[in-house]
């Protein structure tokens, strides 16, 4: 299953890298009349500014991927950092951080993101990345924490304490390498979450809609009433890309769990 996931991701990565070669037009350029139906010239027609939608789908993979992956990275970083601190050091720190995790876990993400990004006056990919990452690290941190909690009491960790390893070394050299698969799984999940999150924020117009991502394409499509005007493909194409990319990350995350989690393995 992970092969399918990896295949799809690779497909989109290649698409992003070679976007200028793959697309006929610059995605930002008015190259035709607005609202042209699909034709040989414009496979997916043109948008309200007469820009080629196909080129936008291709170029949209760039920012969508970048935002998705960097948000995923940041989220994983925060989750891992906080989860490990809470799990390893325990005590009051753990209690405080745990409550914080739970809070961020329970408070509904999108409203929080909406609220925050509506107050942050600057719009742009960076803001989107920060907003999503800062509000959504809770579940990852919780998983990491419980894993650290169990690893911390594993005997090899105690053994390293007995030979005199320092705490930092234990965290990063003894515990972390044993959690890489978990961290990877969290990362893939975070990317999935980030891709959808970005799309949602963009769809609401809470990101910089002049940058082309699949999310902003949906925003424009919605604003141009694409569905009512029979331009369903304008809504369908970027949405499908989001679903595909999301699914591929979900597949990866799932496969990692399936392979490494002994409980999910065949008995």
């Amino acid at each position, binding site marked *: 299953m992970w092969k399918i996931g990896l295949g799809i991701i690779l497909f989109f990565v290649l698409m992003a890298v070679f976007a200028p070669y793959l697309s006929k037009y610059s995605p930002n350029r008015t190259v035709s009349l607005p609202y042209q139906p699909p034709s040989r010239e414009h496979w997916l027609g043109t948008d309200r500014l007469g820009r080629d939608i196909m080129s936008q789908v291709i170029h949209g993979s760039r920012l969508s991927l970048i935002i998705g992956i960097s948000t995923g990275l940041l989220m994983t970083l925060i989750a891992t950092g906080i989860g490990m601190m809470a799990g390893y050091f325990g005590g009051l720190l753990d209690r405080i951080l745990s409550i914080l995790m739970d809070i961020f876990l*329970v408070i509904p993400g*999108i409203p929080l993101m909406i609220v925050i990004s509506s107050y942050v006056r600057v719009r742009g990919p960076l803001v989107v990345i920060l907003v999503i990452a800062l509000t959504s690290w809770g579940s990852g941190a919780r998983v990491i924490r419980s894993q650290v909690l169990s690893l911390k009491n594993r005997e090899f960790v105690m053994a390293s304490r007995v030979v005199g390893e320092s705490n930092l070394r234990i965290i990063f050299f003894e515990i972390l390498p044993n959690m890489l698969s978990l961290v990877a799984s969290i990362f893939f999940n975070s990317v999935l979450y980030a891709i959808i999150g970005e799309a*949602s924020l963009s769809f609401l117009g809470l990101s910089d809609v002049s940058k082309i991502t699949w999310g902003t394409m949906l925003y424009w499509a919605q604003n141009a009433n694409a569905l009512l005007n029979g331009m369903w493909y304008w809504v369908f194409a970027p949405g499908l890309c989001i679903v595909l990319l999301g699914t591929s990350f979900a597949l990866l995350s799932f496969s990692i769990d399936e392979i490494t989690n002994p409980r999910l393995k065949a008995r």
Partner: protein
Amino acid sequence: MKYILNRLFFFVITLFFALTLNFVIPRLMPGDPAERLLMRFGPNIDDRAIEAMRIALGLDKEKDLFTQYVEYLKNTFTGNFGISYLHYPVPVKQVLASSLPWTLGLVGTSTIISFILGTLLGVYAGWRRDRKIGSGILIFSLCLRSIAYFWLAMLFLYVFGYRLGWFPLANAYSTKENLYGIKFVLSVIYHAVLPSMTLIVASLGNWILTMRNNMISVLAEDYIILAEAKGLDEGYIMLRYAARNAILPSITAFGISLGFVVSGALLTEIVYSYPGVGYQLYRAVLSQDFPLIQAIFFFVSLSVLLANLVMDFLYAFLDPRVRG
């Protein structure tokens, strides 16, 4: 009992945190709501109206942060969230009173349906994990998990609302005529079909996956093997032994995932013009209606927290280990 107290404690802390967050965020950012309030008139507004609005909103007076915070807490607990900027001079309370029930109804029913359906599918997928049907359900749920709620909403709206014309395109009940009694109820249900279908389908994947994984964990337990050795029938083992235990972590997961569902529901409401808080929040954000934003955020958090609390109670009720 101890468990319950613990959860109550968490509830209070989280609520307090949400409240404070709610207070802090807007104050970290500068801004002039009066102008935003008028922005939705677009470029056809008169500059003089802005000044009048500032005075009306009491934004011309300064107060220190602490006083504001105390006032804010007091107001929150007395249910006084001030006056909505957007619907000036309607109190926020009233705006919420008219929108919260819609969201609660919509999210409540569809989440329960979706959870039950997803859990059943998950039970089956876990039970039949080695068969085609199990993998089929699994892949289906992985795909569903990657669908953005609003996109699904748009597709449904297009296909079932616009193309096929089976369902209404907007609103929570018919606006063509005034309906009363049972007719009104039917109209409400009819209007809720598409939004709730969206919510059900979009959140289904999550429940399936959670339950499937729990099932598989549970299926490795010795008591399942023993139950099989006893010669009990499959269905009985699947439900009474496996699912009954697998549901426990699912319930916790349910509370947690509720945040995601509510998030999705808000987006869905926007697409379907459903008059719930999601749509209000969207409009409040567009017009920088601080009091309304804060109140909605507060209530959404409160509802999710309450639901979590209920789930915790349910958990305690279902798990004798916690109950005892």
